[in-house]
């Protein structure tokens, strides 16, 4: 069943996209400044466009992870311009893939997450994110004092209150 909001919601979200794009672009570029070696793992896919499409939203995120030149664009979910890969699933699953708290293979095997486009690009992105050990606080660009708290809250929201394996970055 399609649970996407309607056209009006899409228009509203597209209207609000500049601050979202700025926040995400700045956060990823900040990570690239701190840990450039992480982005090297992407190899030739550093300049590729990845589209992340949450099932519940009428918008998607088009990301080109070129380190400090990273670009992020909020696009309509109906925008199917060419890209290296399109990854679709519930928003909570996509966020969990970003911080590695959801196993990408298991998510794919069970069909929770769907991929279209170049498998090699998806493999490179998945392996890069796993090695990076980013957290959702990194994505939001939060300062150090708020990081642990926000990661804890985010995990509760994404996975419920069950205890999870140790965070590899402490």
């Amino acid at each position, binding site marked *: 069943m399609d649970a996407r909001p309607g056209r009006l919601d899409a228009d509203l979200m597209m209207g609000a996209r500049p601050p979202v794009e700025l926040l995400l672009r700045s956060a990823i570029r900040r990570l690239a400044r701190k840990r450039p*070696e992480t982005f*090297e*793992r*992407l*190899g030739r*896919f550093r300049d590729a466009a990845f589209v992340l499409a949450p099932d519940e939203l009428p918008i998607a995120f088009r990301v080109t992870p070129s380190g400090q030149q990273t670009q992020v664009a909020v696009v309509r979910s109906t925008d199917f311009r060419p890209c290296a890969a399109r990854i679709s699933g519930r928003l909570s699953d996509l966020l969990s893939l970003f911080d*590695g*708290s*959801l*196993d*990408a*293979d*298991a998510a*794919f*095997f*069970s*069909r929770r997450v*769907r*991929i*279209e486009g*170049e*498998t*090699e690009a*998806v*493999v*490179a*992105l*998945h*392996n*890069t994110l*796993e*090695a990076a*050990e980013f957290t959702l606080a990194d994505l939001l660009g939060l300062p150090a004092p708020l990081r642990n708290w926000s990661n804890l809250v985010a995990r509760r929201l994404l996975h419920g209150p069950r205890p999870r*394996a*140790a965070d*590899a*970055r402490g």
Partner: protein
Amino acid sequence: MLRAAILAGADSVYCGLRDETNARNFPGLNFSEAELIEAVDWARTRGAKVLVAINTFARAGVLEPWRRSVDAAVAARAHAIIAADLGVLAYARSAHPNVRLHLSVQAAAGSPEAAAFYVQTYGVKRVVLPRVLSLQEITAFNAANSVETEAFVFGGLCVMAEARCALSSYAAGRSPNLSGVCSPPEAVTFERTSEGLTPRLAGYALDRLGSDEPAGYPTLCKGRFQVAGEASYLFEDPTSLNAMGLLQALRTAGVTAVKIEGRQRGKAYVARVAGAFRAAIDALDRGEDLAKYQNLLSDLAEGGRETAGAYRKAWR
């Protein structure tokens, strides 16, 4: 992932450098030489070991990348090198006499005599057992040998006689033993139609999956093909090895270490599997029953199905 495994209780982690010298040469995976140094240093602070897999087969006249990987592993102070190729083993032994060598599963040393050759010739300290041996054969292997043995207990299985698979090469031009990659991702596509999901390798349709059917990474050996009007797995069912229930038996058979396949998996998976096996082995040490650990990891199995592999196989 290395950190996730160690924090979850792994005593050792095996990994590879970012090139064709290890059997998991996938984009975005593996360590640069600088990252390997950092990883080994970190593991040492935690009392854990890093074993570097240099376990593909060097090509005639092109040994240099494998020599470089051996040198890099030694420079990083890795605890051991896991190798299969005779040339790689010979180079490691002559260039670095003190390096600890483990024999990769890719060498397919399935008999005490084969293991003895590697021990006497290259000073190999541990043999990773081929995944075709039964528990009785492992017991006999260990009874005839003093070399340490390591057995796979969790992860994917494949049909290749260790180290040699022609299926991937035939379809896609690259294979695990030569290029370090099975079903290279650049040759993999997923086609979604009204009939379902069709995974393809180099254009070959390997399966057709309904909307709710679990999918796996598409390899030819786990493809489902229609023969005489019936779709079936011709080479290998898409099942995962889970020998959690055989830990006591493996210990009794004389196995030193158990190995979990996790290099292409995420840290969530690695942490869960390593943590479960750590808890089970600790329970075994305390003399407890392992029944409650048996089904802890069933949801992680490829294709949703598990097997004890050859350990309980009654035929050859």
